[in-house]
């Protein structure tokens, strides 16, 4: 097993390295080109368990976790720095956070050299704080399109134009 973690102490700050094992990888629908690593998570209100499956060998891997929409990660945001992984290897991480109001998101970014090429992948995971949704605050509303109906009866999302 080629798994190597130069900064295990750092990893343990953010959570617990639960396992590092080889696993079978299933084909999945494709999208845009990105790093061949599957990022999965089991999400709870204040913590998540991340499962990273490296589908190709990777070196100089950095993993960053951060929150958006008000979610704040507790502890380091860089649980893996310059890690090395074998193809098929699975890494599991625990991440603690304080969720944002209503719905917020935990983002996970994996960068590294995959088969010698610099590649990245970013995934995010919805976190609900268990309380009533608060997303439609005045701030959010001012940044959103207004839903209406056009002259042909079609639902439209109205975007305000700047006049120049």
């Amino acid at each position: 097993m080629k798994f190597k973690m130069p900064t295990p102490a750092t990893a343990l700050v953010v959570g617990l390295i639960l396992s590092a094992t080889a696993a079978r990888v299933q084909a999945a629908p494709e999208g845009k080109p990105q790093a061949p690593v599957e990022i999965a998570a089991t999400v709870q209100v204040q913590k998540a368990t991340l499962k990273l499956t490296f589908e190709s060998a990777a070196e100089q891997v950095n993993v960053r976790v951060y929150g958006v929409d008000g979610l704040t990660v507790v502890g380091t945001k860089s649980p893996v720095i310059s890690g090395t992984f074998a193809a098929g290897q699975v890494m599991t991480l625990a991440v603690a956070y304080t969720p944002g109001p209503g719905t917020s998101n935990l983002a996970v970014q994996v960068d590294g050299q995959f088969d010698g090429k610099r590649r990245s992948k970013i995934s995010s995971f919805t976190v609900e704080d268990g309380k009533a949704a608060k997303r439609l605050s005045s701030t959010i509303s001012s940044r959103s399109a207004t839903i209406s109906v056009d002259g042909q009866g079609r639902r439209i999302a109205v975007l305000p134009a700047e006049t120049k």
Partner: protein
Amino acid sequence: MHGWINLRCSSHQRDTSRGAGLLGTGLLCLFGALSLAPSDANADVKGKTLSGKLTYDRVPQTLDNGLNYSATVPKPIRNVRVALVEDKGKETNTGKELASTISGEDGSYSFAIPDAVTRVRVRAFAQTTSPALLVQDNANGNALYTLESAAITTTSTATVKNLNAASGWGGSYYSGVRAAAPFACLDTLYTAARAFALVRPSVKFPLLPINWSVDNRPESGDETIGQIGTSHYSSGSGGIFILGKEDVDTDEYDDHVMVHEWGHYFEDKVGRSDSIGGTHGGGDIIDPRVAFGEGWGNALSAMILYPDSKYKDSGGLSQATTTLVLDMEANGVNDPKPGWFSETSVMTLLYDIFDPANESFDGVALGLGPIYDVMTGGQKTTSAETTVFSFIKALKSLPGTSAATIAAIDTLTTKSHISPVKDEFGTGETNNGGNAANLPVYRPMTVDGASLTLTFLGSVDNINKLGANRYISFSKPVAGSLQVIASSSSDIGLTVLEKGKEVAHADETSSGTEQLSFDAKANTTYVLVVQGFVTGSSGQYTASVRITSGIAAAKLATADRKISATQRTTPSVPRKPS
């Protein structure tokens, strides 16, 4: 009288909108006249006009640091439907459309204002008619994005209002409505479709919905709330889904990404793709169907955006990270295992076929026209699967292709470690990707002939890798039932294909024994794909395959499948990628 004049104007606009849009003329027409309602007929036009230009903020990419908001430039909103709406205060959102037109190539629009109307709004819909594209909010009931002006008072003879869809960027985060994003998506794919229309004017692209939302994020789940997984083309819905989640991943300004996904739409709607999808990356020795599909998407993005030959993707906090750069001109660089099974090799090869002859090994400069002809011709009708072999064979077979061009194509493929292509089946290919079991690409079999032993590589990390897929070609001189029987020590699956379309499939047990039957046509070439499901193991394993005439065994096989279906543990590979 005005009604009749306007009606004729509208008809002309409809008839010529495709051509007119291409020529950049924003012609005037009054849709209000189409209904010939008495109130409209009474709207007396005395020469008041409202005109201007429509633009959107285009945020450029950088090679290292994602999006560069400080270099934002206005770009014209081209070829979209623009409506003049009467503004009556509270009723504005349901205001009557007084007129409609199509914006010009420079974003220009112009309306005649009925004399009695003094307050209007202008709406520009994120929708084009030729090609048929629209951008909708998949996380909000598929609402069509529409840029709307503030109320405009039209009391002077000529009113000019230039309208801009702003990016919404506030310096460190999106502080305003991201009005530019849908129009950026639209403009990029309008460019893609137009590029083909310019070289092949008869091309018809079916309607393409582009699904973009500020909530579209890289999370699997419910697309109606923005959980789209990643930017992708969905053959199921026939639409493209584009990421828009700030600080996570946005793709509205990543034009190479947009065109890459449009390339999948192109294959699905006007061409053909036999790619089985699945995860992939540079350096993989991958199923050649996947290698071609992904190489095609990447190469096409650079063809459309020529001379920008570097595919770029941005993301992360503040969209300030360039997460991927693919250089189409870097032949052999970052391609550690070049060949017919490498998406990077396919990418650089296809781009070199398109671009000027600008390298010592690149004597081919065919442009988009012949590529379109191949993708909608020989690549679409091949009896083999869609790979680099079928593409190159079709390209070399285009009428009028000179011997010199064929020789230059051979030089290009050789540069990519692909033997000079003789046929769509890769006959004579010598690059085995490091394992003799990978050749020949297709193994011909004879019905009622000897069985064939295939060798699979258990070390592959994914079932879409070359070592997990083997290809057999066969035909039968007379029509009749055929059966295919395969046995292995490991789990396998069988798929019979006719010009890329599945005619029979067996993946019912995990025991390693599969069989299927089908009614074969006379003198028709079929492809049998034998899929191995072992990954992450060591060593090799084999499967023995027989193809025989007859139906009795087939009936038995059917009964067996019904029983063994309950034991099924391994999903089949999806036939069409999204």
